[in-house]
């Protein structure tokens, strides 16, 4: 059995049903009075809680009744359906094979390679030099 009074933490814990179980409140008038004061303050605080705008509640009721009537689906279900659809689309997009480059036949590949090499060798100067040659162009002939 304790000798002293309950402190504030113990009183608050008692209010929430988790206070000390030593029966102190039954024998101590002072602590019982404090506990009752705290309880009434808690009730006051509960009364000062926010109210909900009536128009909001009316809209919410209408929405529930619409859903009962089989009208509008749940907003959460809308979101979930949209999310699943988006994920499916992404999955399909990622899974579908990307267009492969056309397979080159051996002969066309060789021809292209030959042309590339020829052009590189034949045109040894950098392309940036081309405008300078343009300055010396005579009767449609470029002198190199």
């Amino acid at each position, binding site marked *: 059995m304790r000798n002293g009074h309950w402190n504030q933490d113990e009183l608050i814990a008692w209010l929430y*049903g988790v206070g000390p179980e030593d029966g102190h409140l039954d024998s101590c008038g002072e602590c019982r009075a404090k506990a009752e004061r705290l309880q009434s303050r808690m009730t006051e605080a509960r009364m000062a809680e926010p*109210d909900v705008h009536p128009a909001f509640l009316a809209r919410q009721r209408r929405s529930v009744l619409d859903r009962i*009537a089989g009208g509008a689906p749940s907003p959460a279900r809308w979101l979930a359906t949209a999310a699943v659809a988006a994920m499916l689309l992404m999955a399909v997009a990622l899974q579908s094979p990307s267009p492969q480059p056309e397979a080159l036949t051996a002969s066309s590949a060789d021809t292209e390679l030959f042309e590339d090499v020829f052009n590189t060798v034949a045109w040894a100067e950098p392309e940036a030099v081309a405008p300078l040659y343009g300055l010396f162009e005579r009767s449609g002939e470029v002198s190199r």
Partner: protein
Amino acid sequence: MNTVLEGMMAVMAQPQTVEAKPALSVSGFAGWMESEQRRVFLLCVRMLGNTEDADIAAQDTFLKAWKAIGKGDAEALSDPAKWVTRIAVNTCLDRLRSGRWQFWRRRPSAEDEALVLAFAPAPEPGPEKQALAVEIRERLAEALKKLSDRQRTIFVLRHYEGRSLEEVAAMLGLEEGTVKAHAARALAKLRTELRDLYA
């Protein structure tokens, strides 16, 4: 017992022909919903921490209630308020579990919240007292977010709904001792968070 709900259930209990649809009165349900709606919505706000999610959860709660009444859920008759509270709590817990990954979701702004929630007239409408009440309310709402889902549920049912721990245990399908342990941990955390308010 809620007379509106009792009347609705009495109509349902009448023998139905095979072809007849259940004779549930939508207007009767709407009346009962109106009587419970504010409390259920605020419970959802406290559990979910914002009005947008709470709106969806409250709507889902009443839709589930409607469906359960249609199936003749007998528990609805014994204590409709407790019954719908349990549905709301489970709906919110499901929503919290499924919403963990939605970290990118836009949360409603304080202005949006203020449009929905207004302050009830205080018993003594002194501006200082009202300002303090607002501060306490806001701080408590923030502190509640730091509790675990179970701790928050238990605290909300005890503090705002005034349910006994025994009732809370029955609602959540937990042992009373477990509820007590969670309640004690919730209180300890809230005390730490709000120490400056009541010191």
